[in-house]
C-alpha cells in the first residue's frame, strides 16, 4: 500500500556505497567516480570533507588566537615552533594574520561551503525529487573552483611576509597600501584571489540551485510543499547571486589598487611610514559600503540554510507539523529582502553620515522581526510534541537556544548610541560567535547527525554523539558567553595585547578561563571526528528512513544510487504531516498515496 515506506525496505535491500564493490577498477574510473564526479551526492560529500578539514584548521587558528589573548607574549605550544617566531613567542603581526585567516577560513572555506556546498548539493535534488542538479558539470566546477581558493588561502601562510593581516573585512588603505602593513606583501593579494575563486564557485552553485529548485521538483511538489531546508537553500542562493558579484567587483578594485597602483580606495595625501604612496583620489569608505553590501547578506547566507535544516529536524523529532509553515517561508524571504538594506549597521562609527546611520538603524531593528517570527514558530513547533532526544535533535534545540542569544545581542549593536561604546569590542565578537558558531555550527552538526545515515547508509553512534553535544555545549557557552562581559568593559577586539591599558588590565583571568574552555571545545571534537569516521564503516546499518521522517530523500535508498530514485516520486502533501489523527503511523510521507482518513484529517486542519 505504501510502497517506498520505511518498513518495506528496511531489511537489507539497500545499497551501501562500498568502494570495494566498484565493479571496474582503474584510475580513470576512480577519478571519474570520486574525484571528477558530476553526481551531486559525491560533490556534496567532497564539499563536506573539504570543509571539515578546514573547520579543523580554522579551529586550531582560533586556539592560537585565544592563546595570545589569554597569555600574551608567552611561548605558543605547537604553532610557535611551526612558525619559528622569536623564540616561540607570537609577534603582533602574526596575531593579526591569525585572526584574519581564522575568520576568512571559517567564513569562506567552512560555513558558506558547508551549508550551500555540502548540504545544498546533497539535499536539494533528493528533497525535491530530482535525479541530479540541472547542470551537473557546472556543479562539479563549483566544487573545483574551491581548490584554487583552498590553495591561495593555504599558501598565503608560507609566502614572504605571511598571510593577509587586514582583518577579514580588509579595510583599505591598510589592506591596499603595502607600506602600511609590511607583513602583507603577497598574503593580501592571495587572499583577494582566493575570495574571487570562492565567489565564482558560489555563483556557479547558486544559479544552478535556483534552476534546479524551480524546474526539477517532483510532480505534486509545489513551492509551498517544499521543506524548509529547500526554502533556506533557495533564498540563500538568491542572496548569493545578488550580493556576491558586488564583492567580486570590489575585490577586483582592491586587487587593482594593490597591483596596478590605482587608488580606488586611497584618498589623496596619504603619508604612510613617512612616504607618499602616490595616486589617490579614492574613498576608503567606498570599500566598506561594497564589502558590507555583500557581507551583511552573507551573514544570512551563513544562517538561513541552517535555519531551514533545523526546522526540518525539529519537526521530525517533535513528531509534529511545523508551526506556521507559511510565516516561516515569508520570514526567510523577509530576512533576505531586508538583509540588502541594513549593511550600514557595520559602519555606524566609520565616519559615514550619521543621518544615514539612523535609517540603517531603523532597518536593522526591523530585520529582527522575521527572526522573531522564526524563533516563536520553532517554540510553537516543539510545544505539544513528543520530543525524541536524539543527538541531532539536541543540536537543533541548541541552535534555537543559542540563536536567541546571538540575535538579542544584535539588538544592542543595532541601537546606534550603544554601538558607540560596544563597536569593535568583544561584545561584537560574542554576538557573531553566537550566531555563527553556537548557531550555525550547531545547525550543521544537527544536520550531520541527521543526514549521515542517508549519506553513508549507517547511523552515527548516539551515545558518543551526546557526549560530543554535551561537552561542546558547555565549553562553547563558557568561551563565548563571557565575551559579553568583556564587551561590557569595552575590551577591544583585534588587539594582540590589551592588558597594558589601565581599563582592561584586570581582564586577563577571565580571558584565561575562556581559553581553557576553547581548548576543551576543540578537544571535544576528537570525539566527533572519531565517531564520524568509525560510523562511516562500522555504524549500524540504517534503512531508507531511520528517523521516520516525511521528506522525499527518505524514500530513496541509503545511500541513494546514481539518479537517486528507483521509482517515480509523486508528492501528495506538505513535508510536515506528523501525528496525523486517524492515521496508523505517526508520520505521512510526502509520497504516501492519499488515504481517506489522512486526507480528511489534513483537510480539517487547514
Amino acid at each position, binding site marked *: 500500500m505504501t*510502497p517506498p515506506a520505511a518498513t*518495506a*525496505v528496511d531489511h537489507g*535491500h539497500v*545499497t551501501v556505497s*562500498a568502494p570495494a*564493490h*566498484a565493479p*571496474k577498477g582503474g584510475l580513470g574510473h576512480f577519478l*571519474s*567516480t570520486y574525484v571528477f*564526479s558530476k*553526481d551531486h551526492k559525491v560533490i556534496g560529500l567532497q564539499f563536506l570533507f573539504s570543509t571539515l578539514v578546514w573547520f579543523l584548521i580554522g579551529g586550531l587558528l582560533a586556539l592560537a588566537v585565544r592563546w595570545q589573548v589569554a597569555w600574551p607574549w608567552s611561548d605558543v605550544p605547537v604553532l610557535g615552533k611551526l612558525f619559528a617566531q622569536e623564540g616561540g613567542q607570537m609577534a603582533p603581526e602574526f596575531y593579526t594574520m591569525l585572526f584574519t585567516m581564522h575568520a576568512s577560513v571559517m567564513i569562506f572555506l567552512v560555513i558558506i561551503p558547508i551549508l550551500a556546498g555540502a548540504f545544498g548539493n546533497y539535499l536539494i535534488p533528493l528533497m525535491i*525529487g*530530482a*535525479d541530479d542538479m*540541472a*547542470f551537473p558539470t*557546472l556543479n562539479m566546477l563549483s566544487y573545483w573552483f574551491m581548490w584554487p581558493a583552498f590553495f591561495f588561502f593555504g599558501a598565503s601562510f608560507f609566502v614572504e611576509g605571511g598571510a593577509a593581516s587586514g582583518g577579514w573585512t580588509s579595510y583599505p588603505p591598510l589592506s591596499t597600501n603595502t607600506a602600511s602593513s609590511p607583513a602583507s606583501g603577497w598574503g593580501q593579494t592571495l587572499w583577494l584571489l582566493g575570495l574571487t575563486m570562492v565567489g565564482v564557485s558560489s*555563483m556557479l552553485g547558486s544559479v*544552478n540551485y*535556483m*534552476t534546479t529548485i524551480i*524546474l*526539477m*521538483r517532483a*510532480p505534486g*511538489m*509545489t513551492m509551498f510543499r517544499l521543506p524548509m531546508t529547500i526554502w533556506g537553500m533557495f533564498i540563500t542562493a538568491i542572496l548569493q*547571486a545578488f550580493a556576491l*558579484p*558586488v564583492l567580486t*567587483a*570590489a575585490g*577586483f*578594485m582592491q586587487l*587593482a589598487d594593490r597591483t*596596478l*597602483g*590605482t*587608488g*580606488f580606495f586611497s584618498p589623496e595625501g596619504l603619508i604612510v611610514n613617512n612616504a607618499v604612496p*602616490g*595616486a589617490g*583620489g*579614492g*574613498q576608503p569608505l*567606498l570599500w566598506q*559600503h*561594497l564589502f558590507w*553590501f555583500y557581507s551583511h547578506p552573507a551573514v544570512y547566507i551563513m544562517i538561513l540554510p541552517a535555519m531551514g535544516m533545523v526546522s526540518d529536524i525539529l519537526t521530525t523529532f517533535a513528531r509534529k507539523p511545523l508551526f506556521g509553515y507559511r510565516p516561516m517561508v515569508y520570514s526567510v524571504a523577509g530576512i533576505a529582502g531586508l538583509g540588502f538594506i541594513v549593511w550600514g549597521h557595520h559602519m555606524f562609527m566609520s565616519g559615514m553620515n550619521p543621518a544615514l546611520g539612523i535609517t540603517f538603524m531603523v532597518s536593522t531593528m526591523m530585520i529582527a522581526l522575521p527572526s522573531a517570527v522564526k524563533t516563536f514558530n520553532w517554540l510553537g513547533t516543539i510545544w505539544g510534541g513528543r520530543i525524541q532526544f536524539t543527538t541531532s535533535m539536541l543540536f537543533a534545540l541548541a541552535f534555537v537556544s543559542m540563536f536567541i542569544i546571538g540575535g538579542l545581542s544584535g539588538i544592542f549593536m543595532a541601537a546606534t548610541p550603544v554601538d558607540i561604546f560596544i563597536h569593535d569590542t568583544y561584545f561584537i565578537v560574542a554576538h557573531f560567535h553566537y550566531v555563527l558558531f553556537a548557531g550555525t555550527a550547531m545547525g550543521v552538526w544537527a544536520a550531520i547527525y541527521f543526514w549521515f545515515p542517508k549519506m553513508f547508509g549507517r547511523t552515527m553512534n548516539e551515545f558518543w554523539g551526546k557526549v560530543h553535544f554535551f561537552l561542546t555545549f558547555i565549553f562553547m557557552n563558557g568561551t563565548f558567553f563571557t565575551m559579553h562581559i568583556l564587551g561590557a568593559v569595552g575590551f577591544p577586539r583585534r588587539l594582540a595585547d590589551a592588558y597594558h591599558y589601565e581599563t582592561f588590565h584586570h581582564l586577563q583571568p577571565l580571558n584565561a578561563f575562556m581559553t581553557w574552555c576553547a581548548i576543551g571545545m576543540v578537544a571535544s571534537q576528537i570525539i566527533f571526528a572519531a565517531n564520524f569516521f568509525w560510523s562511516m564503516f562500522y555504524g549500524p546499518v540504517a534503512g531508507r528512513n531511520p528517523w521516520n521522517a516525511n521528506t522525499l530523500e527518505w524514500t530513496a*535508498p541509503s545511500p541513494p*544510487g*546514481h*539518479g537517486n*530514485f*528507483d*521509482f*517515480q516520486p509523486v*508528492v501528495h502533501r506538505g513535508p510536515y504531516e506528523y501525528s496525523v489523527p486517524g492515521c496508523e503511523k505517526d508520520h505521512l510521507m510526502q509520497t504516501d498515496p492519499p488515504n481517506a482518513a489522512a486526507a480528511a484529517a489534513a483537510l480539517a486542519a487547514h
Partner: protein
Amino acid sequence: MNASAISVPHGHDHGHHDGHGHHGHVTLQYQPGLPLSKGKLIMWLFLSTEIMFFAALLGSYVVLRFGAAVWPKPHHVHLSEPIGAFNTFVLICSSVTIVLALEAARVNKVGLAKTWMLLTLLLGTLFLGIKAYEYQAKFSHGIYPWKPRGLIYERPDLYYGSAVRARLGEPAMIDRLKELDDTPADQLSTDQVAARTRLQQVRKMVASPDQQAFDLAVVADQIMPLPAEGAAHAEGGGDGHGGHGGGLNDVFPWLRLPIVIPGGNMWASTYFLMTGFHAIHVLVGLIVFAILLSYRLDAKRAGMIENAGLYWHFVDLVWIFLFPLLYLF
C-alpha cells in the same frame, strides 16, 4: 511496487555516472515550474548576477566621480564622442544580427543563420578593434591604468616639476634631445621647428631648481594643453580621437613627458576598469559565437543561439550605460 522491485543490487550505480538513463533507473518527471527551459532560466539568473557585478562597478564610478574634487572632461583624456557613438552603433547592429541569426535558425535556414552569426562575430570584433584603437590612443598619451607607466599628475606641483626634470635627465633622453637640437631646421616641419623652440623653453624652466607653480602650469600646458570648454571641437584634429594636437608630447611622441590632468588618475582607473570588464565580456561572447559557428545552426540549436543572444544583448546593454556615462557627461 514491492520491496524487491525497488531494491538496487550492489554496485549497480558504479561506472555509469555520465550517461543518464542507463541501467533502468527511472527517467524522472517533474512538476511544471516556470515555462522556461533549464538553459534559458540559468542564463537569466546568470545575467542577474552580472547585472549586480556591473551595478557595483557603475555605482563605484558614480561615487568616485562625484566625490572627486575635479573630474576631467572627455576631451582632456582623449575621448572622442564620434568614435564612441560609432562603436555603440556597431554593437547595436550586432544585437540585431544575432536576432536575425536566431530567426533564420528557427526556420532551419542554416546558411543564412551562419551568415548572420558570422556578421555578429565580425561586428563584435570590430567593436573590440575600435576599443583597442581607443586604448592605444590613451596609452600613447601616457594614460595608463597602472602606476609606473602612467604619466598623469594631478596638478603642476613640485612633484610634477621634479618628474619632468627626471624624465628630461634620463641618459637616452639627453642624447635624443641633443639629436633634436642638432637637426637642421629644413629637415623638420614648421610645426616641429616651433615645438622645438617651445621645448627648449620648457627645458630651461624646469632646469632651474626653484620653479614657481605658475611656471610649472605653463610647462604642463606646453607638454599637453587641456582644451578649454567649447574650444575642444574647433581645435581637435591632430590625432583624430578626440584629442588636440600641438602639445609637445603630440609633436614628439618619443618625449613622453609627465602630463597634468586634474582628476586624471582616478578617471583612468575607472575608465579602464569598466571598459576593461566590458571588453572581457565582449571577448567571451565572441568565443561563444565562434564555437556556435562550428555547429549546424538549425532549429535544434535555436536554444543555444537564443542564450548566446541573451548574453549578447546584456553586453550591449551595459555598453549603452557606459557610453553616455563616460563620453557624454
